[in-house]
């Protein structure tokens, strides 16, 4: 659950609407894609397959992906033709109109050939729900038909590779730190100072979350003393690193 807003400049709405036939939807200030409420993953805004348009809208959000697929090499966002889709009528309860101010305007969409049905109640606007429903259904049909080759699977792979690589780097770094610390068991003041400095350096390139996780993992492996002493040491290390991180 995204709790804080990123302080990034948001591309203007007209730029988003103008390109890509409304594929990237503005939702609040950030582009999102989601299944019906199951979890929200912000989209790395890739105005796919059109490198010309990339400069306008995508600037704050694109990441540089060195060894994996470039945005324009990824399979394009799937789109389904209208005659294969059928909207299922959701009967509203009550008289409707001025007498009721209902907040949810759910849209149920069915893909006729594969008979996949999705219900979308993401936003309070029926128009936006219809657009989102088409996107989600297109992604689901793509996954169903293409399996591994679908865009969803490939994007998932790319993200997994990135996460794995990041975790590996973090593990490597903290292993090094541990070895250094074990080596200089005698000079503890120096160790703490060094770790603080190394923590700061390391912090610039890393995300806070990954580092937090890795710190815990690393120390659980390495420490072999009694439990209380272990905990005290972990807390001290974590505290030391955390301070270094925030500074």
């Amino acid at each position, binding site marked *: *659950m*995204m*709790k*804080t*807003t990123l302080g990034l400049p948001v591309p*203007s*709405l*007209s730029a988003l*609407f103008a390109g890509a036939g409304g594929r990237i939807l503005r939702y*609040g*200030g950030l582009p999102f894609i989601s299944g019906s*409420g199951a979890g929200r993953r912000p989209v790395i805004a890739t105005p796919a397959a059109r490198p010309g348009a990339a400069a306008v809208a995508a600037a704050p959000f694109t990441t540089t992906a060195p060894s994996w697929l470039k945005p324009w090499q990824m399979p394009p966002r799937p789109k389904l033709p209208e005659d294969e889709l059928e*909207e299922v*009528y959701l*009967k*509203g309860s*009550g*008289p*409707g*109109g*001025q*007498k*009721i*101010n*209902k*907040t*949810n*305007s759910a849209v149920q969409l069915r893909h006729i050939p594969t008979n996949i049905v999705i219900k979308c*109640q993401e*936003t*309070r*606007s*029926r*128009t*936006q729900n*219809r657009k989102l429903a088409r996107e989600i259904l297109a992604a689901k049909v793509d996954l169903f038909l293409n399996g591994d080759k679908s865009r969803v699977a490939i994007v998932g792979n790319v993200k997994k590779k990135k996460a794995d690589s990041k975790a590996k780097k973090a593990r490597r770094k903290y292993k090094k730190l541990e070895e250094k610390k074990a080596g200089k068991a005698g000079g503890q003041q120096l160790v703490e100072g060094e770790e603080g400095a190394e923590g700061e350096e390391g912090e610039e390139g890393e995300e806070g979350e990954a580092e937090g996780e890795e710190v815990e993992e690393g120390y659980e492996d390495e420490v072999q003393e009694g439990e209380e002493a272990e905990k005290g040491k972990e807390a001290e290390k974590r505290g030391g690193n955390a301070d270094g991180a925030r500074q």
Partner: protein
Amino acid sequence: MPRIKPQLFWQGRKKLGLNAAKLLPVCRTLESTANELRWIKQHVAETPSIIPFGARVWKLCDKRGNGLPLAYVLGNQPFGDLEIKCRPGVLIPRTETESYTIHLSNILRRSLSKSDPGQPLNIIDLCTGTGCIPLLLYSQLSRSLPSQSLNVVGVDISQKTINLSRRNLHHNLRADRFPPPSTSDSSHTQRSIHFLKADIFSPSSLDPILSTTPLSSSSTSSTAGTGEWDLLTSNPPYISPSGFALSTSRSVRNWEPKLALVPPVERVDLHQKHFYDHYYPDNENLLRKVDYQPEDVFYARLLEIARTYGPKRVLMEVGDMEQAKRVAGMVLGDGKLRRLYWGEGTDEEKEKGAGGAVQIWRDDLVGFEGYEEVLEVGVGGRNEKIVVKGHPEGHGRSVYLRRVGVVDHDV
């Protein structure tokens, strides 16, 4: 209303947190509670403030739990691709309204794309409230008919709503959701949108607006008007006093303005006996047997305006199918309206679309345009066949009139 099962509260607390308990009595189902909680949290996340996140969500859930409608809690309501600001004292735009407005803009787009764009399109919306219908029509048409000149007017009786409409216009302009109205005469596509205060029941305040604002291409100055209205829309108060007490949902009844929901029935008492004489003094048919109810008084006035000024298309929102049939009956029971909007042509002419049209539209037309059926409406002893568009499970939502000679290209 039945009690909410305690197990639902426990499930809500487990899945959604402590705030769910406040929202459940209002939202009634876990699904709906989850949705509303999510929207509240998103809203708090998007609007920066020094007050911490959790405290703000708590406060808003408190307000919502008391019955305050979500649009008032969050301060806005999405409408098409616009964001309409909502304040207590002004009616919240409904999704049904959004649906038929978009369908109407699709019809206009298809019908006008081939016609002369130099002729400005004059649209007037009465009882506009937040200004949602004029703003959405302006937004849709300026995008789908970029070379067409537009002149959109919204009228309401209350100064509060006019202020809010103007605020909505500026809010959406700033967010770049539609092109700005042009002020210079030199550009060939002129677009203007105004909100004016007037009481539609008093001819002295409404007639100046109706006769001077339609623009025609031959006028040199933008203020003089000699053209005619292309579209008259309205979402008037249509709930009867008993309906308000019995079938209106609690959050509407307690928090939304009654001025926008229930017509002032006392006006009808004065004229009820002479309903037709008062509103249609030159009606040669004198069909006094037309069935009407006190809450139809706004439609009587709207149809009087329609028969005087003869707009090409008229769209009025109604409460249910019964009221829709009564309004259609009012149209067919008056000689002048019949000539203007029904025509006395044969059925074949009507099917070609050259004749006029009196249609009833149901809920949720967008996406369900193909559905059509024919309904019998009794008018003064005779039965007339009215086309009803929309999925058969939907409630009757609006009455659409098209003047004889005007063509709607197929949707």
